[in-house]
């Protein structure tokens, strides 16, 4: 039994935490929230220099070749710091899509630049309110030109290129599009979390290059599964940070002559948050194992990790505000960062209802695997 991260990755996590606590205190997301910049370019550059953006990219393509587990520990720390960078779009989605379905030429072309942080990629899928069901996509490609409208594309206004999901029929379902090219119109949109920029993108016959391996709607689901595991760690980190903020305030804030943390209403509230966060962490570990070992049950593990992480993030971030009382919903307090980000994450790859439905469908097809035993 070795259900834990190897020591070298724990060291990586400690380094990441030290770096981010110094380089990305909450004043950084606050600057993005209030200022004009879409993300912290400086921070992004340093992350790239440290090899974070290429952590899971093989060395032959200019990456660190540390594998998915390394991305998971970095994701947890970036979530803890609510870092305003396009890491999830570029690393969990764009990079992953090319690794999974790209030709060697495409890997040669994109991965080294992604590893170096010179290119920022993203993933464009949603076309209307409702589930992220690839079979319902309207966007399409006709002889190399992609048309369709994509909503709330994370980092859509700053990314250099996008992996765009289309209804591919018997052809590939994922295509690379240069967002600077012609036939692409992007409009920045305001979201519930302005610390991460989003755009509405209209593709009108934009030049598109297929990812040859991405055949069938399953390939889109596969990409979402991989991203869901890595994002789950970011969500757990974010929830953990909200819990720590609430705990610290409950220790220091007095009411009725005693610390509010000595009242069971607060103690048991935060105990319940701790429970949710630890369940989510354990389930994220399960996802990491499945992703790392390329297990057949990845769709199950990814669903479990995502559902659990979404629940923990929502509970931890809203009860952090509640624990702070009136100050909790002021602009000046940092509670808002976790609350906004937690909900953004919970919507990013589709809501939990979709994932629960899919989880049961997957369990029914292979229910001998991974049923809770003890």
């Amino acid at each position, binding site marked *: 039994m070795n259900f834990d991260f190897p020591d070298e990755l724990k060291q990586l996590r400690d380094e990441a935490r030290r770096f981010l606590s110094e380089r990305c205190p909450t004043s950084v997301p606050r600057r993005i929230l209030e200022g004009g910049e879409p993300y912290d370019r400086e921070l992004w550059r340093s992350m790239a220099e440290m090899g974070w953006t290429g952590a899971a990219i093989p060395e032959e393509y200019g990456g660190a070749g540390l594998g998915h587990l390394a991305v998971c520990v970095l994701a947890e720390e970036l979530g803890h710091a609510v870092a305003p960078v396009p890491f999830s779009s570029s690393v969990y989605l764009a990079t992953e899509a090319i690794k999974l379905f790209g030709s060697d030429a495409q890997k040669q072309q994109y991965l080294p630049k992604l590893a170096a942080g010179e290119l920022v990629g993203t993933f464009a*899928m*949603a*076309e*209307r*309110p*409702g*589930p*992220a*069901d690839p*079979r*319902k996509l309207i966007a399409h490609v006709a002889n190399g030109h992609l048309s369709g409208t994509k*909503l*709330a594309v994370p980092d859509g206004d700053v990314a250099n290129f996008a992996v765009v999901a289309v209804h591919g029929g018997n052809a590939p379902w994922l295509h690379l599009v240069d967002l600077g090219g012609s036939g692409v119109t992007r409009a920045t*949109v*305001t*979201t*519930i*979390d302005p610390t991460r920029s*989003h755009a*509405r993108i209209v593709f009108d016959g934009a030049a598109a290059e297929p990812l040859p391996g991405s055949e069938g709607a399953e390939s889109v689901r596969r990409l979402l599964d991989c991203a869901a595991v890595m994002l789950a760690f970011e969500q757990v980190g974010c929830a953990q940070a909200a819990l720590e903020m609430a705990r610290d*305030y409950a220790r*220091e*804030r*007095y*009411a*009725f*002559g*005693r*610390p509010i943390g000595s*009242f069971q*209403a*607060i103690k048991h509230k935060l105990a319940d948050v701790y429970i949710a966060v630890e369940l989510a962490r354990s389930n994220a570990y399960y996802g990491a194992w499945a992703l790392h070992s390329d297990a057949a049950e990845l769709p199950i593990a990814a669903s479990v990790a995502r559902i659990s992480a979404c629940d923990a993030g*929502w509970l931890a971030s*809203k009860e952090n*505000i*509640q624990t702070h*009382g*009136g*100050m*909790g*919903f*002021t*602009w*000046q307090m940092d*509670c*808002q960062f976790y*609350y906004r980000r937690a*909900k*953004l994450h*919970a*919507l*990013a*790859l*589709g*809501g*939990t*209802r*979709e994932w*629960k*439905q899919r989880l049961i469908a997957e369990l029914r097809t292979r229910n001998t695997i991974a049923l809770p035993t003890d």
Partner: protein
Amino acid sequence: MDFEDSAEEAAFRAEARAFLEANAERRKPGAVEGYRRGQDAPGAMERAKSFQRRKADAGFVGIHWPKEWGGRGGTQIQNVIYNQEEAQFDVLSGIFGIGIHLAMPTICVCGTPEQRDRFVPPAMRADEVWCQLFSEPSGGSDLAALRTRAERDGDGWVINGQKIWNSGAHYSDFGILVARSDANVPKHAGLTFFILDMKSPGVEVRPIRQLSGSAHFNEVFFTNVRIPDNMRIGPVGGGWRVALTTLMNERHGMRDSPGPDFQELFTLANQLELEDGLAIDNAAVQEKLADFYVRSQGLKYTKYRGMTALSRGGTPGPESSIIKVVAANKLQEILSYGLDLIGMAGPTMGEDMPVAGIFEEALLYSPALRIAGGTDEIMRNIIAERVLGLPQDVRVDKDVPFRDVPTGSRG
């Protein structure tokens, strides 16, 4: 058992409706009720004041107040009926709520006849607007722990300190203020209640920006602000009892939460396409809808029980104390579920989102509703102690001089 008006009630309702039809515009049907969307509109204050004047002249302000206060001498249920009717019109009486529902009743009950006759008539016609100066950063749920000092100085008082969670200080003429006149006695015993002229020198108002981006509250700072003694309400050191009179009138209990409710979620479910058909055809969505509907109906009929008591000249029963905590939490659950259904496209703000973007908007203001006007935790304490009669928690701050009560690094 019926939901009908009595003959008198029906007559009054007709009178109220006639006044409103003549003086205000009906809300568009299906218009989504955002959070204070109206109050932030340009020119809102002017329109609000001119309507308030006509409302007062028509006798619909202070409906259930005794005549000697300048009220109509009507009943509580008439008040409820008028509010039901007014709720269907696009008016902003809420801006004057603090003056009409909190300040004036307090002044009439605890103040002198002179104070009453001086302040009530202009407040009714919105010639003078009022705000409340109770909460403090150090207080929070522990309201009586306030620290703003009131020191005797000749024929008056000098105020120093800070208040928070004030609504409308920037447009108010007067405020009701509680301050500590003696820190050497236990916390409830050392308070005194005043009327403050908001234009007094030394009063500084700073808006507090909320998570939602809007600023509906202020911090108010006092630096050697003078208040003449004839602006004191009730005895020196008797401020807590006066403040309780105000808080009674606040009747948190009956307050509901604005924003997405069953109807908005039902509308959303009828619009959204899921993997296999409309959301409303999905059994999982139906089950959630049913849970929310049952809770919404429970609140609705709990209010009806309270209104029935009023209609019989009584007061609402203890069951009214559940409304605020249930409504605020239901709101947060509904909007979270609505966003979950909207999914990947959900984070976008804007009226072009499903159901006019109410789910995204409510996400940002809803946390305040579980806190303002009594946190979930305080409301549950109230139910446990006042309704169920369970014993108080251990109180370490009760019988010690206020200056000796422990305070933490976060005040």
